[in-house]
């Protein structure tokens, strides 16, 4: 019920602001496509609608698509999906103090999540405090996940199968940024709640970090009682692109209850490398991320749940044509291709030289059309090969996906 209330009140707020747009006081702040922004700026770097006299800005995006999937030759037919409606609300509370929240409605109102809700205090560009519900800076996609920024309807497999995008937690920390000539450097460091035992005990039947997202108490209670640390450094050359190195880790299990030791402390550690650059002249944009995770799984537990996993994705986006339809100034037509790979269980079965399977590979060619940088229409064809734990012949799946995503 409370979901409806949230939804309706937000909607009314949005409508008021939009209707009031006729009043000259309202204006739209587009998102900054200039080159001084890093992935870490993504939460604030979005188009907002605001009013000169009100220190509040709102924005959001919608993602909808149709999908036709064939799994091993069998299809459930055509579906229409309204995957996400996300609303942002930001306000400059006072000089140097600002607040932003991002609410996400997934698959209608099936899942409502506060993906971000934090207060930022700027002391110096190199030293800002942030606290609340923060997005853990692991890889780039987790923080920079808005649908309209991508040419693909599906999120990268590594970002939903290893990194639990969008992965945010109650916590706080510091971040900062500095520029010199063509260089931009940024860092972030947070302590927050972390993972729980579900990562090695879930219906996916694999070590699956996103399983912790189902724990409803995770914003009020930290399962292990020890903080998870996450941090990132990123460096960007304005002419070329950005690379980032990030880490997130902590104890995930409830090793102690009522002062009694139940188990040893078991850690999960995740490291990621991300890059985003554009090849000069031909303007090919290459975006990618590789993630490695190590999870301390009890030795006597089933090997179904792997100790180490890795995955990556790379997107190639090539603008090919700038149609001037309907006087759209900034429109582009892109060809794109994504490669996904995830191995949820690296290594071999105990005492054997037999490799453990449990991996997925996918390719997704795509065409996308952007009337403006804030809206994308995309046609994707995804083909994937998924192997079970003992490497039986891969399950094959293909999907046609057509949809759009737009900021509003």
């Amino acid at each position: 019920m409370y979901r409806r209330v949230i939804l309706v009140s937000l909607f009314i707020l949005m409508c008021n602001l939009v209707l009031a747009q006729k009043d000259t006081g309202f204006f739209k702040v587009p998102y900054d496509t200039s080159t001084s922004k890093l992935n870490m700026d993504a939460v604030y770097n979005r188009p907002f609608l605001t009013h000169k006299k009100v220190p509040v800005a709102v924005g959001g995006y919608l993602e909808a698509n149709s999908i036709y999937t064939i799994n091993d030759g069998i299809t459930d037919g055509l579906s229409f999906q309204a995957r996400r409606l996300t609303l942002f609300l930001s306000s400059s509370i006072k000089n140097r103090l600002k607040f932003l929240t991002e609410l996400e409605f997934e698959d209608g109102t099936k899942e409502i999540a506060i993906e971000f809700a934090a207060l930022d205090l700027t002391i110096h560009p190199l030293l800002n405090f942030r606290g609340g519900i923060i997005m853990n800076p692991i890889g780039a996609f987790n923080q920079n996940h808005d649908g309209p920024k991508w040419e693909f309807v599906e999120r990268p497999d590594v970002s939903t199968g290893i990194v639990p995008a969008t992965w945010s937690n109650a916590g706080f920390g510091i971040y900062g940024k500095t520029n010199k000539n063509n260089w931009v450097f940024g860092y972030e460091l947070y302590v927050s709640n972390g993972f729980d035992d579900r990562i090695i005990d879930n219906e996916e039947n694999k070590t699956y970090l996103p399983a912790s997202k189902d724990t409803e108490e995770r914003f009020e209670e930290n399962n292990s009682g020890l903080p998870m640390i996450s941090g990132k450094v990123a460096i960007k050359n304005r002419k070329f692109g950005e690379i980032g190195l990030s880490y997130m880790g902590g104890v995930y299990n409830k090793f102690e209850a009522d002062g009694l030791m139940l188990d040893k402390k078991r850690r999960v550690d995740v490291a990621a490398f991300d890059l985003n650059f554009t090849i000069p002249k031909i303007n090919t944009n290459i975006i990618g991320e590789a993630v490695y995770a190590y999870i301390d799984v009890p030795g006597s537990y089933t090997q179904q749940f792997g100790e180490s996993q890795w995955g990556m994705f790379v997107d190639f986006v090539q603008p090919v044509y700038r149609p001037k339809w309907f006087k759209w100034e900034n429109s582009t037509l892109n060809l794109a291709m994504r490669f996904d790979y995830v191995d949820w269980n690296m290594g071999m079965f105990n005492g054997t030289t037999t490799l453990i399977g449990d991996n997925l590979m996918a390719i997704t060619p795509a065409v996308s059309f952007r009337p403006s940088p804030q809206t994308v229409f995309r046609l994707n064809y995804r083909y994937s090969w998924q192997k079970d734990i003992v490497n039986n012949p891969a399950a094959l799946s293909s999907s046609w996906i057509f949809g759009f995503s737009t900021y509003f």
Partner: protein
Amino acid sequence: MKNIGFLSVIILGMIFVSCSKLGPIEPLEEDVLDGPIDGLNSTELSEFLKGDEAFADVFTVNEGLGPVFVANQCAACHIGDGKGTEFVMFTRFGQSDTSGNQFLNQGGPQLQHKAIPGYSPEVLPSGATTTDLVAPAVTGLGYLDAVSDADLLALEDPNDVDGDGISGRVHWNMIPGYVTLRPGSVTLNGRYISRFGKKAAAYDLLAQTAGAYNQDMGITSVFEPIDPFSGLPVEPEVDESVVHQVVFYLKTLKAPIQRNQDDPDVIAGKNLFTQVSCVKCHVDVMQTSYSPISVLSFQEFYPYTDLLLHDMGPGLDDNYTEGNALTSEWRTPALWGLGLSKVSQGGQYLLMHDGRAKSIEEAILLHGGEADQSRQQYEQLSDTEKAQLIKFLESL
């Protein structure tokens, strides 16, 4: 530039249109083990689907997994309803005589060698003898279940009256109180003819399933309420109705379908299979009697088993008894679906009870005891004939 752009759009469009026909094609029904028997009515189909889901259900700690267990899902061991792999193999332990399992109060009969976090797995008690078992396929079991006791008794020849060296006997075993006897069930000194499992120790699919929940996953039910870790009765962790759905699913999984039946080598191989007496144990044709599931009633089917226990000689003797089955006795496994084993065993064959045979030929060469003569006859075949026989087995 503009033209190039336009051209690429057109080319791309053409690629997409031609790709729309792309996409994985459905494997032929004969190439997969899963799927229901043809002709189930819609009520039966929906029960089948519920059972299918329960068979694939992954048990978590919250749902009662363990504390000690072997695997967390029926389908983890019976992958795609086919055979399992070494990775989920389990060990049973007991003794070498038929006085009954003496280790029931020490965690017997099965070794739960995995434990949920914070618990220690079971260890083998000293003095126990053991056998390792690889999961069999679970297809076509409804047919095997519906064969009458009378038919099995007609197949056995415990004293080898016909002098062919092959005796074969039904497994007279004790049965749990919760099973319902099949029509025409025969009894002898309080024992009944059991037929499922590698040593045919389980009377019916309910006993096998309730036992699997309990011993393989540490999941208790009204049927098997004792938790294998504590040895104490606990609340049922799986609903009675779910257990019945799984049993219904097992009964209505289709029998594997033979492939390449008309290939001349396959036909020649089938003749050799009879000629070298394989068919005396791996009986090709059987009949079901009455079954409440009408598609299973009074049907002829081709399982290549006699559901009887045979002494397989010292090589396969694990020094472990189950019920009344002696240490060297194994129930003839059905050979239907044999050729599809690799698809669930990670691209390799792991045959015989413990998966020690890595090829069909190796499996044949391990036959001893009552099958000694048959194996020798096989060894005397020419290379071409051997290849034909194996090609026939792969077509099953």
